[in-house]
């Protein structure tokens, strides 16, 4: 399998990539970087310019290798799976892959349980548009809730759980204030449930929640809820060092959260 990180993971959230390589090593599965890939390209922004541009750049990426492609970004997943379907190519999202093919094996490879209360956020393009995403409900997905349970965390429901992070469709780039207002609606719903962290499966959502909170801090609005990609959490539960996961490069990292990640709950204590 070839890993397609997309711009956000390759150029900002490298910890997600490091975590994926670690997980695949533990699962004894091959994964290699897809060399010379470009922007997928981002569906909302590129399709606002030209369908052909969107299609042709995606096609170039898919033609870089004959192998199946795996990604950890919802935008890349949507673009590459839609264009890939016209070329007979399989493209998978790492979360769908872990859930469908590897959930039993993950259970056996957990080195320490991490008992957190978390708010999971799917991100729109993991389950919509549903045409090439038949593995998941287009209304109320449960895959991620089940995956966080595997590592000993509890997924709690909250207001606006299945709604957008507020950053998609080019809105974060074109209308930051709108993105910020929507982010706050999500954060207020999450804050009510008193969670340790927000678990995402897309680097754009991660950016919106994490950097978005930093921007809110500058406006005197403090939420202080850390955000982590599921693969980072899983890799730590499988035994990876916290520093390798890249979580300390995120903006919002309260010490009590970092402590919980480090300490976990080893099986001897149970």
């Amino acid at each position, binding site marked *: 399998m070839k890993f397609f990180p997309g711009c956000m993971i390759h*150029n*900002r959230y490298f910890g997600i990539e490091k975590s994926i390589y670690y997980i695949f090593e533990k699962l004894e599965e091959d994964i290699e970087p897809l060399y010379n890939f470009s922007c997928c*390209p981002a569906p909302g922004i590129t*399709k606002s310019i030209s369908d052909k541009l969107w299609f042709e*750049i995606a096609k170039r990426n898919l033609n870089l290798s004959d192998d199946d492609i795996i990604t950890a970004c919802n935008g890349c997943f949507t673009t590459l799976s839609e264009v890939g379907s016209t070329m007979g190519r399989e493209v998978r999202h790492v979360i769908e892959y872990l859930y469908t093919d590897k959930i039993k094996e993950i259970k056996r490879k957990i080195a320490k349980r991490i008992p957190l209360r978390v708010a999971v956020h799917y991100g*729109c393009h993991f389950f919509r548009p549903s045409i090439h995403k038949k593995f998941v409900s287009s209304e109320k997905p449960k895959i991620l809730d089940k995956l966080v349970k595997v590592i000993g965390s509890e997924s709690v429901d909250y207001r606006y759980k299945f709604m*957008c992070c507020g950053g998609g469709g080019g809105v974060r780039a074109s209308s930051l204030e709108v993105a910020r207002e929507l982010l706050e609606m999500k954060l207020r719903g999450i804050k009510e449930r008193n969670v340790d962290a927000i678990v995402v499966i897309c680097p754009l959502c991660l950016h919106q929640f994490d950097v978005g909170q930093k921007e809110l801090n500058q406006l005197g609005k403090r939420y202080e809820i850390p955000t982590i990609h599921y693969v980072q959490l899983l890799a730590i539960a499988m035994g990876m060092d916290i520093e390798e996961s890249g979580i300390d490069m995120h903006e919002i990292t309260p010490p009590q959260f970092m402590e919980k990640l480090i300490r976990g709950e080893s099986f001897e204590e149970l």
Partner: protein
Amino acid sequence: MNELKNELKKCIQCGTCTASCFSGRVTALNMRKIVMDYLSNERSVDVHDEIWFCLSCYACQERCPRGIKLTEIILKARQRITRKKGLPGRLSLALNSLKKFGALVVAKEEHVKMRKSLGLPLYHAQFDEKARKEIEKLVEKYSEGVLI
């Protein structure tokens, strides 16, 4: 495009789209009204600048009981706006960086250092001149006169 416009005629004005729209909670985006404006006044979707507030979350499209491809219609309308007025906000910077680096989010020196410190290779098109040229050509060929 006419095919998509004909789809709008299937609308029964039930308002499921607007009720599903997260962006519409805080912006002027109201898909039911935009469709109504087309049906009764023949005003095209692209006269509504508020479609730039669409998050492309696809909730309206997925839930439309008439199966109208609402999100696709918004994206098509945006294409017509970009040909007339260019891209709003920082989106034109994004297209520029796609053309120049093959990336919407470009790595700076600090990110290169951090990748190296984690032992990760640099394999984005941004770091390969040949790949960069390929993308540049695709953007020139297919951005169809959009004002960059």
